[in-house]
């Protein structure tokens, strides 16, 4: 169960990535660990524990989707099939490095982009609200966020590649 400590950040990110509403993420991630514990005898030692627990989490998210009729941000199954089949390998101990790289990349952003990150993620404002505040269209804001995430992703990869011990 050292694995709980190692995998919990990645698992939470994974569950969130599937689009589960924020307040349910921790509950589902914890339940995934509990089920993993209950089914531990079925886990094949030597294989990827993180990928296994993510597969469990994915089923739990699908259950959440079926359970709740009201619209929430859970990706539809056809898209999940493409994105996560086979399940993503666990990032394991790389979580801290990725988070550190993200922080460094955020610090490099121009003021306008940093403001957009703050509004969307730290203040949790929907694109439409940001758009009304900034005198732009919601689509403009969504596209700007899309480009911003792409730039951050490239920056993170560049920084991770530059870390000592990187291949």
């Amino acid at each position: 169960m050292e694995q709980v400590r190692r995998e919990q950040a990645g698992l939470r990110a994974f569950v969130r990535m599937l689009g589960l509403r924020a307040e349910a993420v921790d509950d589902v991630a914890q339940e995934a660990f509990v089920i993993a514990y209950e089914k531990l005898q079925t886990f094949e030692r030597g294989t990827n524990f993180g990928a296994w627990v993510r597969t469990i989490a994915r089923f739990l998210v699908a259950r959440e989707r079926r359970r709740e009729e009201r619209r929430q941000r859970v990706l539809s199954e056809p898209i999940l099939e493409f994105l996560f089949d086979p399940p993503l390998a666990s990032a394991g101990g790389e979580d801290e490095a990725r988070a550190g790289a993200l922080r460094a990349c955020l610090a490099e952003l121009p003021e306008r982009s940093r403001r957009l990150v703050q509004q969307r993620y730290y203040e949790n404002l929907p694109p439409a609200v940001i758009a009304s505040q900034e005198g732009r269209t919601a689509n403009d804001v969504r596209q700007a966020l899309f480009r911003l995430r792409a730039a951050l992703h490239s920056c993170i990869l560049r920084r991770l590649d530059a870390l000592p011990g990187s291949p």
Partner: protein
Amino acid sequence: MKRPQPDPELRESLARLVEGESEPADEQRVAAALRAEPELTQALRAQLELDALLRQEATGLPGEFVESVAQRIEAVRSAPEFSARVAAKVSGRRSRWRYGLALAAMVALVAGAAVWWRARDPRGTRVELAQVAGVVSWSNDRGAWESGLTDGALLGGGTLSVEGETSSAVLVFRDGTRVTLTGNAEVTFSDDGQKRLRCTRGTLTANVTPQPRDRPMLVRTANAEIEVVGTVFSVEAELALTSVSVERGAVRVRRIDDPRSALVAAEQVAVVDAESDRPITPRQTPAARTRWQAAFETPVDDRWSALWRPAEGVDPHRVAAVPVLVGGKQKFLRPGVKVYFDPVASSGVAVSSRTVLRGRVRSAEAQQLSVFVCTNGANGGFAGNFGRVIALSAPPDAAGWREFELGLADLEPVPVWRDSFPRAEGTIVRFLLLTALEGFEIAALEIAAP
């Protein structure tokens, strides 16, 4: 990440999907595109990963997560149906001792992980000290203790003591939030995704970067709790009063044990009095005074650190110095007289180029008087500490009283604040401290701009 160059409709669908605003038509369009363009899968996966990473960065990780998992597993493990199920499976496939050992190891590991998490706090609290003046020490509840801290020290969660009225320090959190402590302050802090500070004495000024909406920064004093999402504000935790001044943004303030709260907006001040249960009423931050004086005709109140003495014979009403803790390279007690200015009556005394401090002081021998002021900006934020030592060289009158006068704009900035706050002019004096090597009395004090 290789940026896709899809048609405008698909681009809009992709963006809506990542933002969680997609309609069924968007998802159908994206699913069709994913089948046709494998590169798009990587790009979309990267977008979703980044979105998740940013959300996680914004909301942080709960320190209790591992412990919660441990508790849930323990509950499952101790449930009778689970034990029966385990027993059946074990008898069928594995030896009992081996499974029991695995169970025990698992529980031990979960517990160990929880302990490890609490002890090491790997993604939890880490703050950097900056602009340290005087003696600053840190301790935590596991017995660690460090004193004589200097700029750049990295600290985990614990209690920071800024010892001495003239000492100060800044805690810089990883997200750039800066908490300035002045005036013999003590604060206990932690950050496990949500910043929690408990200010037990002194003054805390915070410049808070936007915090996750569901994890606002919480500042507690003996009688109040302040909830902050992102703003600049000051908290003065002294005696039975907590005063909160907001420079920018807004904070929510409530009395401990009272669910009612009040929103304190920019340029407002609220005072929480431990001895009153009246609703908290924010008020416009009062304008700074341009003149203040004290003749000590009545006993001094709690905002003074001084011993009041009534008129007696030829001696006028006066106050005598009391031991005051001051901090330099070492902390020491000095005879001193200190006064905080009432934040409700006024935000302090404004310092202009012509503002002077005057007084009548008596001591057994001619000596030097150290004048120290802690200042705020117009709406409450910290604006620097300033001081100067003057010689009480004027000849005494028949009763031994000497007069002194000093231009407050001429005060020198405390070295660590020299770059940030080089001049006292334009600031507002929040507290005034006079100290000397030997005991002294003061019969009159005045700050005025002639």
